[in-house]
């Protein structure tokens, strides 16, 4: 029996609805002083997570910065209003139009709540100047920055509403932010022309303190009687807090020149033994080794290093020192668990020319090509018969409901997971959950089962079967990857599912198709079904775009409600294993404003002393409505194959010699 590394997956699933009401606070994940915006002055890849708490308002916001001049915010605010509450889902942009100069201020334009004209929406134009440790901003605001009730500012009835932008009488706003330099305290003061219950103008002040590296807590107060607390986590995946490669240096590279050809040459068994021994010191395992003609073919994997280019480089370094002189090609196969996904082909002479050069990574990349792994390969050294095994683990999951709650109501679930693996391609797995924390308002089952909106009708406070399914993965051609799954996929659905993905290792895109037939699971009990079924047929495009680790996933097809829907996810992969993405969707059956979600995956090496390639996931948004929703838990193949994308490996090639 083996037990996987204990890891914590933290998931916040925030169900959202359209916001209406009387007060507007917070600005959707963009840079801010107290409630007024400040200049977009961060740098590319900055990431912030804001949690705002005050008596009549709470919000969880994500701030992402894809470039130095653009901020994107995704926010989930909840407003108390009388006896109830309402929630929003805001997509916001801050655009740095003009960089600050020695004597000239910078200029920033922002749109909060893009696509919606509801209470959270607003626009602003700001001029900002930094003087030492002080940043001052003055500007004009529309919508939430000009009215105490900013609703229905336009007539446009389309899904993305735009005719209200920068419309109406603006109000002035100004703020000043001072980094005191004393115990990381930052003070801010602001003025806004928006009136409130207590005064015709609003003044606010805040003081923030960095309690841990990257985590700040701020307290703030306004003359309108509003007080609150804000938590801000800030990080930049390109600037890690810790260095990841100081455990050990790489093996010295030895060029294949001169007298080596005249010396006694090692045999296949000898090279394999040396390679295995030296790479074990780097936590790299050799799962297959063959030396035929002028080629060495190695299947290598690391459980610790998320940068496959560095794994390939370390294999090449050792091979350079021990391979016979007649070997001209190193082939390193990437294995994902179920699949041999890539063969990275290295030209030894090219590496000889590259090592030690000022452009060594670029030269090594020029000496590299990609191939699909053959379906069948002859027997080789290092291959072992797979031993079936049982493994288990535990996962706590936190969810917050923004639909039914008057406060930020949470559920906490403890999942016990088990898996029996028959072969690298086939396993059966199950998960039993128990809700140890339940603040949700439990609903009675509806007369007619609904695709998703009945999620609060599933029985709480008892152990329940979250999932129990069997999954088999296989290739039907070198470039076609397939899966079949059957069983109870998730709390709400069980059935059968099949999927195929075409991917050419030399290309930066892949195409997938998933077909699923499911029955709605019973609201009570472990194995029953409701009298409702559904089938989905969804095609997907997975593409790596640009050269910054950016990617997009486009899904289109028939979803659970029988509706045709399109989903779009855009994100960025980082070479240290971080992944940040935002998503939205459109359905032919839904005429409300677009909704947005976000996901952040952080490698366990950042959160656990045990390191490893697993990730801690934090997601917001996601599937909560009935339309544009698909079955989860079927085991989409791209989740397994994404680390094999050529662009991902190219992104990490700066680490080839490390």
């Amino acid at each position, binding site marked *: 029996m083996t037990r996987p590394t204990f890891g914590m997956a933290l998931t916040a699933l925030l169900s959202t609805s359209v916001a209406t009401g009387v007060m507007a606070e917070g600005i959707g994940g963009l840079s801010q002083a107290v409630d007024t915006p400040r200049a977009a002055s961060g740098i590319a890849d900055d990431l912030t997570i804001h949690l705002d708490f005050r008596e009549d308002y709470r919000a969880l916001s994500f701030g992402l910065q894809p470039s130095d001049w653009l901020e994107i915010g995704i926010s989930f605010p909840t407003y108390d209003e009388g006896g109830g509450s309402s929630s929003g889902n805001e997509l916001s942009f801050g655009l740095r139009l003009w960089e600050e100069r020695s004597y000239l201020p910078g200029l920033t334009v922002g749109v909060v709540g893009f696509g919606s004209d509801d209470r959270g929406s607003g626009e602003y134009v700001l001029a900002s100047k930094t003087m030492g440790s002080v940043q001052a901003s003055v500007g004009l605001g529309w919508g939430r920055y000009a009215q105490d009730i900013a609703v229905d500012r336009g007539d446009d009835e389309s899904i993305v509403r735009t005719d209200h932008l920068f419309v109406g009488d603006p109000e002035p706003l100004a703020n000043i932010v001072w980094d005191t330099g004393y115990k990381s305290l930052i003070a801010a003061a602001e003025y806004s022309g928006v009136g409130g219950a207590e005064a015709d103008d609003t003044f606010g002040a805040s003081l923030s303190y960095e309690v841990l590296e990257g985590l700040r807590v701020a307290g703030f107060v306004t003359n309108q009687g509003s007080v609150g607390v804000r938590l801000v986590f800030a990080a930049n995946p*390109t600037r890690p807090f810790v*260095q990841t*490669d*100081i455990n*050990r*240096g*790489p*093996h*010295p590279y*030895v*060029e294949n020149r001169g007298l080596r050809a005249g010396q006694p040459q090692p045999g296949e068994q000898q090279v394999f033994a040396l390679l295995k021994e030296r790479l074990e010191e780097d936590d790299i395992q050799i799962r297959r080794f063959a030396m035929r003609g002028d080629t060495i073919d190695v299947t290598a994997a690391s459980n610790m290093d998320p940068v496959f280019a560095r794994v390939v480089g370390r294999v090449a370094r050792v091979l350079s020192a021990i391979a016979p002189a007649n070997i001209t090609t190193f082939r390193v196969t990437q294995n994902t668990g179920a699949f041999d996904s890539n063969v990275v082909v290295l030209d030894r002479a090219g590496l000889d020319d590259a*090592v*030690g*050069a*000022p*452009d*060594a*990574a*670029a030269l*090594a*990349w020029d000496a590299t090509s990609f191939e699909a792994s053959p379906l069948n390969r002859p027997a080789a050294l290092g291959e072992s018969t797979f031993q079936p095994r049982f493994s288990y683990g535990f996962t706590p999951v936190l969810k917050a409901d923004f639909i039914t709650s008057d406060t930020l109501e949470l559920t906490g679930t403890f999942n016990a997971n088990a898996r029996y693996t028959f072969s690298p391609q086939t396993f059966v797995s199950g998960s039993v959950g128990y809700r140890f924390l339940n603040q949700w308002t439990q609903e009675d089952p509806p007369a007619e089962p609904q695709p998703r909106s009945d999620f609060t009708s599933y029985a709480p406070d008892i152990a329940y079967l979250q999932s129990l399914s069997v999954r088999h993965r296989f290739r039907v051609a070198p470039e076609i990857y397939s899966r079949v799954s059957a069983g109870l996929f998730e709390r709400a659905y069980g059935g059968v599912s099949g999927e195929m993905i075409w991917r050419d290792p030399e290309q930066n895109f892949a195409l997938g198709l998933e077909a699923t037939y499911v029955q709605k699971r019973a609201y009570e009990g472990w194995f029953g079904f409701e009298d409702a079924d559904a089938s989905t047929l969804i095609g997907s495009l997975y593409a790596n775009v640009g*050269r*910054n*680790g950016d990617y997009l996933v486009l899904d289109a097809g028939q979803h659970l409600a029988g509706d045709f829907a399109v989903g779009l996810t855009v994100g960025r992969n*980082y*070479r240290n294993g971080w992944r940040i993405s935002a998503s939205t969707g459109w359905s032919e059956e839904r005429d409300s404003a677009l909704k947005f979600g976000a996901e952040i995956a952080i490698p366990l090496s950042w959160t656990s002393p045990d390191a490893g390639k697993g990730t801690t996931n934090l997601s917001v948004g996601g599937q909560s409505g009935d339309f544009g929703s698909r079955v989860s838990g079927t085991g989409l193949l791209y989740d397994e194959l994404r680390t094999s994308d050529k662009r991902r490996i*190219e*992104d*990490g*090639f*700066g*680490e080839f*010699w*490390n």
Partner: protein
Amino acid sequence: MIKVVFSAGLILALSGCLDTFGQMRDAIMNPDPEVEMVIPGVNRAAIEQADLAAVLMLSPGTGIAAVGIAIQMRDGRIIYNANDNRGVTLDGGLIYATLGFGTNLQAVTTQSNDPLVTEAKAGDWPAEVTRTYHVSQRGTVFAQFTAVCRNQVGRQLVIDVVDANRRVVEVLETCATQEGDTFNNIHYLDAATGRVWRTNQWTGPVQGNMQVDVIDQFAP
């Protein structure tokens, strides 16, 4: 670490009335200890008896120290390697590359008459030298930091380099990158030949300064 060196450089560059050389030297050679470092013991007699070229490598920024033996010459540069594959590549007295000390300096390109590379005597150094540091980043192209370094010759003295007394001349380099960052290097050159016995050089924005003490010089 880099903050310390940058700060020290910036403060002292702006403070004309200070004993600049001595204070900068002290700031470089005795940085605030951010990470505890265990310095390995060196058996000088054994190294000399085996006729090995060897260096002691110290990285205060990452708290790593190791003794490296010359194992390879590539393009005229000497590669020193320690048991755990940590190492430096020296081009004359210039730290050309580092491995296993944190973020790895991939290469340094410099002008043909760089006195650190040619190991010129202190009095023969040109007024300034331009070097470009190559550090890995996302993708296949390394990040580059180009710095102009101006030097200042200090006193002659005798220093202890791993249990051997060496008569040296100290040379301080004050360097500024095109981005406006500053750092400092300090070198202790053999008073008679100009060869480096001890050098403390910048090796990248995260790794900061590293010190290399030459235990036994490479002799081809």
